């Protein structure tokens, strides 16, 4: 008999519920007059991020000596879910708070921690992810960006792709090949902190299908990185990246990207919905309620120092599936022509969600890759 998955119960500590009330109060003020926004963790707003930093809501779980606040992962979870449910524009600091900061905390040098973490926690220093390349998406180990040792540092040549917010960010965590491929293709990669304002970096916008500019192509030409900007151990990049992904995949953003549309759908359906609408809404909420409990459970396990890579993959697969269903269910219930510029909040949110939905099951690991991970967990691979 298999005991493959573990989703332990989580009870939120009182501190987390107190925080929830504070966050709601803050959002009520900050979000007053803002229309509903779907996929709000791709909305970049440095002013909002600085306010978050002032309140101690970035790098919450990090040690105080690095600008953190030594709060629990469960408190952080509650903060994040409240922000996402309200559609707050959290994109600027999101990646740094979620994975770059924790990466530096775990693998970085003391100097790196002292330099970067307090700035991140203040909501003033933004990071992007330098993993994907033109010919390396799901097959990350095939990256071709190369760093070659030279003059007490490294010279980088290569191209990163689908780099969200590179044009706004200060730094990138770059994954580059630092040794020739041998029989183990996961060896010989290294992570670096890269200053995107330094010479040798060219950032070109790539508009998405909604006409928005989040993605970029980032080209490095003879770009020099000093040795002290290596993150962790030379050639150990793969293992460090895998560690980062557990954080990247398990959060509430993997089920709440389309939540504001559910809220608008409930509003549009009114207090006496048709039987069809009540059933469809009830079904979505049954999924979301369960997903939230699963995701919370993963947060609890991360807090306990476990590495629930498998469970994170399950949450992301099911979560994004549900997120993608939301606009379809909404569309079929409320007959309207989707228009992102409509004055009607439901129509506009529906249009926006519809256009962004394809990305949900691609970013952070495609559905197929996640299911491959789950299948490995079942002992099939």
């Amino acid at each position, binding site marked *: *008999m*298999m005991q*493959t*998955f573990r*989703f332990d*119960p989580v*009870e939120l500590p009182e501190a987390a*519920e107190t925080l*929830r009330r504070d966050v709601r109060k803050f959002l009520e003020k900050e979000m007053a007059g803002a229309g509903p926004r779907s996929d709000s963790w791709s909305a970049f707003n440095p002013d909002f991020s600085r306010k978050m930093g002032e309140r101690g809501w970035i790098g919450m779980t990090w040690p105080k000596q690095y600008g953190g606040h030594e709060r629990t992962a469960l408190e952080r979870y509650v903060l994040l*879910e409240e922000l996402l*449910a309200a559609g707050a524009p959290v994109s600027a600091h999101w990646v740094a708070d979620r994975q770059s900061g924790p990466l530096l905390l775990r693998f970085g040098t003391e100097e790196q921690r002292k330099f970067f973490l307090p700035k991140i926690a203040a909501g003033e220093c933004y990071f992007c992810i330098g993993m994907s390349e033109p010919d390396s998406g799901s097959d990350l180990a095939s990256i071709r960006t190369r760093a070659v040792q030279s003059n007490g540092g490294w010279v980088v040549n290569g191209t990163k792709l689908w780099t969200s917010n590179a044009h706004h960010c200060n730094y990138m965590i770059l994954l580059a090949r630092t040794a020739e491929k041998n029989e183990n293709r996961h060896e010989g990669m290294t992570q670096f902190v890269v200053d995107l304002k330094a010479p040798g970096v060219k950032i070109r916008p790539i508009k998405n299908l909604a006409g928005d500019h989040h993605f970029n192509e980032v080209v490095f030409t003879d770009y020099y990185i000093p040795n002290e900007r290596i993150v962790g151990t030379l050639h150990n990049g793969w293992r460090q990246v895998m560690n980062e992904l557990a954080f990247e995949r398990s959060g509430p953003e993997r089920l709440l990207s389309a*939540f504001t549309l*559910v*809220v*608008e759908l*409930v*509003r549009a*359906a*009114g*207090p*006496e*919905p048709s*039987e069809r*609408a*009540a*059933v*469809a*809404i*009830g*079904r979505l*909420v*049954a*999924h*979301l*309620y*369960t*997903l*939230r*409990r*699963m995701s919370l*459970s993963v947060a609890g396990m991360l807090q306990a120092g476990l590495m629930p890579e498998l*469970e994170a993959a*399950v949450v992301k*697969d*099911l979560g994004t599936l549900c997120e993608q269903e939301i606009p379809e269910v909404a569309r079929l219930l409320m007959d309207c022509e989707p228009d992102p510029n409509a004055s009607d909040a439901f129509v506009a949110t529906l249009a926006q969600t519809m256009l962004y939905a394809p990305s949900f099951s691609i970013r952070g690991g495609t559905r*197929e890759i*996640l*299911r*491959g991970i*789950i*299948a490995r*967990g*079942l*002992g*099939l*691979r």
Partner: protein
Amino acid sequence: MSDARETRQLITDAAHRLFDQYVSREVQEKAEAGTWPGALWTALEEAGLTLAAVPEQFGGTGGAVGDELAVLRASGRYATPVPLAETMLAGWLLADAGLKVPLGPMSLAPTQRTDALSLAKTAAGWTLSGTAHRVPWGRSVQHVAVLAKAPGGNAVALVKAGAAKVESGANLAGEPRDSLVFNNVALAPDSVSKTGTTPDDLMQMGALMRAAQMTGALERILDLAVRYAGERSQFGRNIGKFQAVQQQLAVLAGQVAASGRAVESAYEQREQAGDLAFAAAVAKARVGEAASIGAGIAHQVHGAIGFTHEHMLHYSTRRLWSWRSEFGGDAYWQELIGRRIAKAGADKLWPLMTGTAG
């Protein structure tokens, strides 16, 4: 928490050992043909598993409600052909009304929203009238706990099963689903008690227990499908080596994981006296959907052999196909959730989901 976790694991292990010993293929087949698995039932009763969460003062084992979940999940995993959930449900209904719970297999009525049963006062006690349709294991049990309308409110009656006229029926898994006709059945005064429990409450608790059993059944079909994919060879390799099969099994595994968490969350709400109505509705709706998706995948992976009577997969899948519709199907519970949200309003959706609606 870790103590409760350990207790639960002990109970799960004990239940698995017991079912391993007593739920053989032969017992399954005979039970479906109408032979009561007496040895299995006696073993369950001796292990104190039939009334796991009924307080001791009412005749139960006095365990936590989570113990009930552990036993039901295990029984679902083994497709155990006895009215274990029904006995627990009847025990809950009786104890909640302050009635002593007897030993022996029990069932409950009504299980259908359209059934109406009534109690009338007489000089000697009470009489019970009405027909209860599709009563699980109606012909096999010793007692039925009946929730009926009485003058001035609802009451619970403990009725000897022999007092009813039985019309046999069955669900897809061959589990008895019988009509019980109560024709002015005379009851002693001490076998009836007023209750605050409504038919909706009973429905909710029945849904929760079915969801617990279904979670066990889903775990079982995942086990079977993964094992089969590792044994069956086509095109020169195990079919589990094909990505198309792996991806399907990953979907099944996700449904199993979601079901487990949905049911556990509902039991947590019950244990903490939280919003059980919401969580139980979510559990039955979510697990019902998982049952449909999961059974489909398990059969697809098994191919033709899984469609035979000889293979054991159908003991689990026929139960899933029945149970998902018992005590309210997916859509019944989905609508209930949807209406509750609509009534609360869009801005209360998130507080409802997080249990912070106040």
